């Protein structure tokens, strides 16, 4: 069987194919297909093709019930990456600053422990997860379009960093445009590549829940980050928890699922003058003005301290609110 021909035929007919179809049209297509020149062209563009039958094809993905005929892969990392423990971190595109902070911090901790973080390069949770993972390790982005497309455009720079240190993969040949029906298909690859899937924030009907369902179908673990019960963004994740997903209360919860223990982290040394402010944002996110009143320090001193804490990675700011980075380890 020629997996490349199947992949190219599926893309050219906008269909979802796993094996060679028995049709005259496919026979004609294969007869006309100049595989060596396609492979040469891919090679020239730095894109690898891994057929389902080839070594290097991710073992976990091969075990799902509808594994793609092959993967187009861009990026500098080795394909042995797929043999390491992999965890998907997915969630809402329109996430809250809480969701983005949790995704980034979880991904950072997972990557530090040697886990490959897999996500979909979408805005929101996906992007935060990739960014966090790149801070301490590597990451894999699965696209619902050609690997040369860098979709969405807002994540162009992020995609460039992933290509430098991780992998961008897709079952679609280069040039294929993103289409709504391709995203659920993409999600099965995200779930299929991973031992476990963590949903950070999701609305009631969200693509991240599709990923979670697909993971369950393949008997992979599903974890969810609890959220405020009054927030629409927690509806999906809290629903998963009620159905029996593992709640994520710290990094260790995720690592335990893949059989790892957290790397003990040396707590960042914080000077006492910084500690006052850090403690003030530890419980609830606060605006700078509230901190001025809480601590009685002048606004200038509070601003300077917040900047130093941000620089130390202890505090993050979004929309004017400062929050302490979750102690996930």
């Amino acid at each position, binding site marked *: 069987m020629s997996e490349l021909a199947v992949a190219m035929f599926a893309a050219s007919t906008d269909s979802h194919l796993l094996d060679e179809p028995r049709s005259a049209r496919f026979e004609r297509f294969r007869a006309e297909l100049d595989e060596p020149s396609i492979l040469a062209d891919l090679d020239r563009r730095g894109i690898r093709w891994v057929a389902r039958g080839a070594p290097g094809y991710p073992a976990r993905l091969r075990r799902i019930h509808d594994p793609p005929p092959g993967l187009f892969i861009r990026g500098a990392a080795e394909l042995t990456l797929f043999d390491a423990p992999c965890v998907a971190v997915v969630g809402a595109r329109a996430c809250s600053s809480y969701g983005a902070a949790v995704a980034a911090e979880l991904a950072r901790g997972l990557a530090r422990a040697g886990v490959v973080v897999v996500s979909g390069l979408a805005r929101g949770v996906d992007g935060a997860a990739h960014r966090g993972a790149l801070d301490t390790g590597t990451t894999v982005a699965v696209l619902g379009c050609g690997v040369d497309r860098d979709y969405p455009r807002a994540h162009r720079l992020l995609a460039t960093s992933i290509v430098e240190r991780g992998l961008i993969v897709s079952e679609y040949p280069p040039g294929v445009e993103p289409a709504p029906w391709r995203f659920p298909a993409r999600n099965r690859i995200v779930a299929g590549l991973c031992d476990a899937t963590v949903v950070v924030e999701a609305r009631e009907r969200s693509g991240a829940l599709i990923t979670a369902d697909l993971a369950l179908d393949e008997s992979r673990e599903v974890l969810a980050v609890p959220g405020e019960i009054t927030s629409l963004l927690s509806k999906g994740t809290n629903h998963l928890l009620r159905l029996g997903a593992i709640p994520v209360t710290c990094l260790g919860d995720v690592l335990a699922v893949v059989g790892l223990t957290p790397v003990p982290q040396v707590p960042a040394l914080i000077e006492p003058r910084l500690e006052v402010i850090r403690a003030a944002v530890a419980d609830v996110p606060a605006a700078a003005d509230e901190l*001025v009143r809480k601590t009685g320090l002048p606004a200038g001193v509070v601003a300077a301290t917040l900047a130093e804490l941000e620089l130390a990675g202890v505090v993050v700011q979004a*929309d004017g*609110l400062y929050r302490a980075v979750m102690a996930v380890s």
Partner: protein
Amino acid sequence: MLARTVTHALVGIDPRRVEVEAHIQGGIPSFAIVGLADRACQEAKARVRSSVAAAELEWPSSARVTINLAPAALRKEGSGFDLPIALAVLAASYQVPARSLEGHAAFGELGLDGRLRPVPGALVAAEGARRAGLTHLVCALESAPEVALAGVEPVGVRHLGEAVSYLRGEHEPLEPPPPEDDFEMLACVPDLADVRGQERARRALEIAAAGGHNLLFAGPPGTGKTMLARRLPSLLPLLGDEAALEVTRIHSVCGTLPPGAGLVRVPPFRAPHHSSSVAGLIGGGAGSLRPGEVSLAHRGVLFLDELPEFQRPVLEALRQPLEDGFVSVARVAMRAVFPARFQLIAAMNLCPCGGRGDPAARCACTPERIQRYREKLSRALLDRFDLVITVPRPRGHELAGPAGERSAAVRARVLAARERLRTAPPVRSAPADELLERAVEHLPLSGRGHARVARVAATIAALAGAGDVLPEHVAEALSYRLPREADG
């Protein structure tokens, strides 16, 4: 008989000498104005005729009256020619001694009852008179304080009849009312004490005032962004003589000078609406070239609320004045250069619906919509803001808190810092340099971002009275940088 008076036309904000010649000769009775006079200027005929009658003087009704405005190639606009035309006609008809007009210029609009009305641009007309070597300017009484600023003796009159009796030597001109005191005008500027809470924004405003930095406020509506911006002039030093004259000249031409005001000493504050056109903001216009909002804000504050709602071309047009401190406006027929050295304060919401950053509201904007909203601001424009702060909505009890510090106290610190920045600007210490390098490495901070932070840090050090820029000054400056999503 031929008589002549002198007045000045405005070209942009510069005076051009115009001679008004009146010729009275026998023939079929008529009244004509020649010399490229526009509509308002042509209508002077009706006003001048009625005024002469109202002043109980005689119109040469059985003669042919011709007015020539020289140079004939210069387009004349507006109603300031009424008075010089009337005086020229009266001199040509021997009702005013022609010799008494020597050394005098005239400028003003007449009413049908002969009263004299002030016309925008009296200061510029007076400067023209001084340059032309004239010593007196006959004008409306309200314009007299402006005229006096140019070093020309104002002859402020209320009525054409008064002007005539002055020229006949029958009585001396009235004393113009003394201009308003500078400090009294400062008292009219809203005070920072009205702002409750908002410690961070107040601090940013103080730094902006001390270093002349452009400042961008981001936050949901109703967080007092506009209120804060309006209070910036109360923190700035009063304008020096030369700057005050520049500012007064622009406001005189645009007619935005309060009546009876002397020199504008308080830095002006302009807040054009986001529907403003390029010509409205930058200057220009169909007929004559007029200064725009950027020039009205010269040496003061230009406040642009809802920054992303301005049309893109308007925002891009702002870049030249922000860079050069002037705008040069060119049309086929003429060109003009207007000063425009202003401090830019802008405000924007965090998303198009305004709900983001407000715990009481739910933002319904999609990420794409927010992205589009923020993309309306080009990098080149965002680079002009040294200070960017996000102002979340204050909670109810903050608004009930004690009144803030008064402007006068903040102003004293600002003036001291400005003096320090001028005489002995603080130099970055080695540890401060180290922190800045660390920030470049760990934060998304571009090369231009680096320069912005360094500038702001120097201002913060000057405000603190420090000789060197210390790490804490750099750290504070870092907290006012462009947020990550905007600093790609």
